[in-house]
């Protein structure tokens, strides 16, 4: 074996080690105790795979025409720009804005996968012929990567509030989306049947896929964005695997397939927890997100409660379960809730948090937000663990959560039927902090609010919690 061949083997083994690190890293994310370590292992595998690639490129250049400064300039400048932007945004982002940043990182990943296919295709156009399987992988990579790129940017823009979180329905928009999909499929079939690379047709596919990403995500409401981001994450993984087929690189195939599978499972779990099908969400036009529910109708009679009365209930309770929801995340009230909880704990009240699987803006997002506010992790209870405890709890404090507490879900025939809910109505008394009697995401009245045990404190989550804290202090 020549030196180059030995290096080639070592690099391939390093790629394999990287792939193993990704799998073990993901496996270690099973438990909060090992999750961080798992992520670091995965990062180590990534560094190894990238470092090995640099060694391979260097070795090939040394064995050939010598070091090519331009190649290293391209890689160096690209790594400096991308790494700088990634590091800066990741370190400075507020944890409430984290979902849109993840979406943005997903967009650039999909974009990079599409660019690899485009570059490869340009070479094949020069050559003038292409194998059918390569052709299929390239076209799939371009389509999936481009849809992910623009789709993730729109999803990120919606969460950031740059683009309205409401479903944006253009007259005939669905037809445009279907038309774009049809154009891509027909153009792709044309390429496969003629069997020769055609730049113009590829550009048509690229344009159709880029616009498709926009028109696919625009009609979807802000509250559904977590599912969309998860789906797009899965798409990117698939696009990267396709790029792996195109350039015949196993580590891209393995890592891409892993992410494709994980994203698909997460998407399904999220949609299940909201009692909706992924298809239903993608059809869009549902789920207005924040700010769209004000001033909706009232169902049944509700009892309003003052901050002082609510504070007395809380302060003299022996156990309180806090139910945080989307409204708390939107109002960034995680620190306010911790302050209130600490005041209650000083008075000997046992405080726990009931976390619905889809509370917040992504599954598990609520845990991240509350952990950021230094709320001890053992106080955060998952739905199955906390539900039996509502029977023994004196006060349930619902902050900005709606549909996940609606007892109507236990009956058949309502839009929320069958959705797993928190058994808040089993508590001895209930305090709900909410801006208005507006309906939640499912668009129906919450029977919890007209329950005689429930007192409604109408306020923004942050202001309501702050006024409760003031009132508890004054007792």
């Amino acid at each position, binding site marked *: 074996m020549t030196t180059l061949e030995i290096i080639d083997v070592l690099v391939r083994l390093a790629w394999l080690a990287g792939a193993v690190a990704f799998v073990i890293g993901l496996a270690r*994310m099973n438990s909060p105790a090992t999750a961080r370590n798992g992520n670091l292992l995965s990062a180590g595998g990534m560094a190894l795979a990238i470092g090995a690639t640099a060694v391979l490129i260097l070795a090939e250049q040394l064995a050939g025409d010598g070091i090519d400064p331009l190649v290293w300039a391209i890689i160096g400048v690209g790594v400096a720009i991308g790494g700088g932007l990634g590091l800066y945004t990741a370190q400075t982002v507020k944890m409430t804005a984290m979902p849109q940043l993840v979406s943005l990182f997903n967009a650039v990943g999909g974009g990079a996968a599409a660019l690899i296919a485009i570059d490869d295709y340009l070479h094949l156009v020069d050559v003038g012929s292409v194998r059918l399987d390569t052709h299929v992988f390239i076209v799939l990579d371009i389509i999936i990567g481009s849809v992910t790129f623009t789709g993730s940017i729109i999803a990120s823009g919606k969460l950031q509030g740059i683009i309205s979180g409401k479903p944006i329905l253009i007259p005939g928009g669905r037809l445009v989306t279907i038309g774009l999909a049809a154009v891509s499929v027909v153009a792709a079939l044309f390429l496969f049947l003629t069997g020769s690379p055609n730049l113009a047709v590829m550009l048509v596919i690229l344009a159709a896929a880029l616009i498709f990403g926009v028109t696919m995500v625009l009609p979807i409401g802000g509250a559904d964005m977590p599912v969309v981001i998860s789906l797009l994450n899965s798409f990117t993984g698939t696009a990267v695997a396709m790029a792996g087929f195109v350039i015949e690189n196993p580590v891209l195939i393995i890592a891409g*397939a892993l*992410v494709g599978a994980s994203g698909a499972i997460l998407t399904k779990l999220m949609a299940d927890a909201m009692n909706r099908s992924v298809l239903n969400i993608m059809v869009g036009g549902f789920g207005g997100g924040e700010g769209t529910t004000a001033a909706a109708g009232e169902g049944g009679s509700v009892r309003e409660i003052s901050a002082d009365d609510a504070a007395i209930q809380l302060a003299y309770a022996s156990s309180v379960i806090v139910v945080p929801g989307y409204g708390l995340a939107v109002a960034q009230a995680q620190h306010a809730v911790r302050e209130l909880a600490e005041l209650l704990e000083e008075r000997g009240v046992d405080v726990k948090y009931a976390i619905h699987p889809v509370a917040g803006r992504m599954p598990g997002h609520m845990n991240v937000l509350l952990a950021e506010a230094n709320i001890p992790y053992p106080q955060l209870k998952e739905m199955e663990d906390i539900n039996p405890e509502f029977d023994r709890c004196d006060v349930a404090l619902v902050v900005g959560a709606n549909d996940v507490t609606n007892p109507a879900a236990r009956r058949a025939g309502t839009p929320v039927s069958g959705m797993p809910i928190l058994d808040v109505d089993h508590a001895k008394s209930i305090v709900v902090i909410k801006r208005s009697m507006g309906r939640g995401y499912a668009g129906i009245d919450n029977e919890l609010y007209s329950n005689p045990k429930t007192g409604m404190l109408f306020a923004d989550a942050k202001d309501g919690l702050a006024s409760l804290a003031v009132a508890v202090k004054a007792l």
Partner: protein
Amino acid sequence: MTPEEIDGLIQALTVFTLAILVGFAVISKVPATLHTPLMSGANSIHGIVLVGAMIIAAAADDPISQALSLVAVAFATMNVVGGYVVTDRMLQMFRKKPAASKPVEADEAEA
């Protein structure tokens, strides 16, 4: 296609299929509380596309390819670096109250 090319394709498809099954097996065990960090962690893993971007950069021999590979390297690096850093920031928060120096072991009972 030559027999070697068919062999290569079948091998690649085998790896792809098995990796999907591994992904399902590993990930379906993760508790809901870790889904957001997991999603972010998986998001960083597809940053492996940087390896592909470097390979096309090394082969780029005309200005268009050079420009495409520069953008691809920048995009992919942003995905890798940003993804791992933001995931680590999230996971750092899953600790017990005296948030200072102790690592996460103590949280194990709650997992």
